[in-house]
């Protein structure tokens, strides 16, 4: 559904994208992860024909956005941080305006979408008075306005309150499940992505450095097992167990997190620990996307 083949793009002295190839299958939800300035927004602009690659090419739904751009843009919903709204117009008038540009036939669509994203009480308020979170909700509604087959969402939950974040993530899941919408999400909020993405693409300095599902990445970047123990054991005494550890106070209780080489080591280690101190609880800390992100960057980025 979305492909990039050997794409390079330079802005003056800065090489923004370097020989980058990626693909997102129809109906997939894929996270595009990387630090600020790594080229995520540039890729969204390239996929929508706002930028011309210096080398390589991109396709969306089989179409080249530089040749058949209006068809690509008609099929795509885009949310980026830099694309603004008209401050002197109300939220409803802004969406009505974009509904005209996108040829939306249902006249009730702008209003119902605004209500869906939680702006039902602010339909007639000028956008100039909106908070960051409200603008983000409006941007999300605009991206969904024409019921697109592909969604490009650049930081869709940045600046949202917990309720807004939950609503956006739920909508992403629902659209993908019920309509088969293909979604590319750029975000720094890695924990949130875990709940919606099927696969992840990691980029750094315009280069694709890793990709895969969470399970594939976990298998590839399996780190030491982290065992978190709720115990009275003094840190000085913990050193005697011969494993690296970190100490943290959680709700007034001491938590020691030991780094073990292997999962098979856990029962024996716990038996020795229980023999030397009171233990109130213990669990293996699961490796999440955030830990993987840093592990991948540590290994792949020089």
């Amino acid at each position, binding site marked *: 559904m979305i492909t990039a083949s050997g794409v390079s793009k330079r*802005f003056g002295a800065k090489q923004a994208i370097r020989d980058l190839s990626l693909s997102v299958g129809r109906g997939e939800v894929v996270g595009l992860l990387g630090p600020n300035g790594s080229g995520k927004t540039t890729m969204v602009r390239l996929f929508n*024909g706002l*930028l011309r690659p210096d080398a390589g090419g991109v396709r969306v739904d089989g179409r080249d956005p530089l040749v058949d751009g209006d*068809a690509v*843009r008609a099929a795509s919903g885009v949310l*980026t941080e*830099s694309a603004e709204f*008209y401050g*002197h117009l109300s939220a409803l008038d802004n969406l009505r305006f974009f509904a005209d540009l996108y040829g939306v036939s249902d006249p009730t669509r702008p209003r119902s979408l605004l209500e869906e994203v939680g702006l039902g009480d602010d339909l007639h308020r000028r956008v100039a008075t909106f908070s960051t979170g409200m603008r983000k909700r409006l941007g999300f509604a605009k991206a969904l306005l024409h019921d697109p087959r592909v969604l490009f969402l650049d930081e869709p939950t940045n600046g949202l309150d917990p309720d807004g974040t939950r609503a956006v993530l739920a909508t992403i899941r629902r659209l993908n499940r019920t309509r088969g919408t293909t979604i590319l999400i750029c975000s720094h909020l890695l924990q949130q992505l875990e709940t919606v993405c099927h696969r992840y693409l990691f980029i750094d300095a315009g280069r694709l450095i890793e990709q895969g599902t969470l399970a594939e990445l976990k298998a590839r970047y399996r780190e030491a097992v982290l065992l978190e123990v709720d115990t009275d054991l003094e840190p000085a005494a913990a050193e005697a167990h011969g494993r690296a550890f970190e100490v943290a106070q959680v709700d007034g209780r001491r938590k020691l997190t030991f780094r073990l080489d292997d999962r098979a080591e856990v029962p024996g280690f716990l038996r020795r620990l229980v023999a030397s101190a009171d233990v109130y609880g213990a669990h293996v800390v699961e490796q999440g996307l955030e830990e993987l992100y840093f592990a991948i960057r540590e290994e792949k980025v020089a």
Partner: protein
Amino acid sequence: MSRQRAVWAIVRKDVRAIGANLQVLLPMLVVPVMLGVLLPGGLVWAILRFGGSSGELQELLQLLERVPAGSLSGALSRLDDPSAQAAFLVANYLLAPFFLLIPLMAASTISADSFAGEKERGTLESLLFSPVSVGDLFLAKVLASFLPATALAWGTFLLTALTINGVAWPWMGRVFFPTPNWLPLMLLVIPLLALATIFLNVFVSARVATFQAAYQLGGVVVLPVLVLVAGNVTGLLFFSTAVISAIGAGLVMVDLVMLLLLRRYLDRAQLFESQVG
């Protein structure tokens, strides 16, 4: 249908923006009232009321000697009273170039807001992400400046006609404004001048970051018009039908050349990279 809908949506949005920005709205209200009502109404009234005894009138009447032979001199010769002759000359000829300032100011202000303002507010990127071709976008933006600027000029012209004839009625007792030379000015020169001003502002807006900068830089278009004003007032260049038609023909050429030069902005990627990216 969908293309038309998008184009008119952008036109409506931009026209609506005129009322939302005082910097745009104020000159649109003040300049027409000054140049279209107060200046002509005041001048004509003063000439007819105090004309007979004023020295300025004698200076003005010296211009009559330079009036080229033709319909103007014929019309003037039919008026016996020197004050009526002076009022006729001022209303129908000397005011004409001032009128050019109205579409010029309006087109310049609206297009600066429409083109540079879109960039300044960060909304150009939103437009470029939409499935509207850059050609349609350009057309919509030009219409959004052209239609109000031309309508304002025509509306002001109507007000001027009412004001001048109303003020002069007690002395003239008939409608004497406008004369036929206004027809090519209003129907040909005014729209072409508005278009040239808009095209110039597209170039200016592409090179500056803000509405304010585009507005100030775009203001240089008044200079050639001021030359025309001076030429007309000193009697060097009477705004006869022939002169007006020549100005119109010159503007057609200017508009066509600028339109050709503007083609390079019709590439979306190039437009985005030069204006946003």
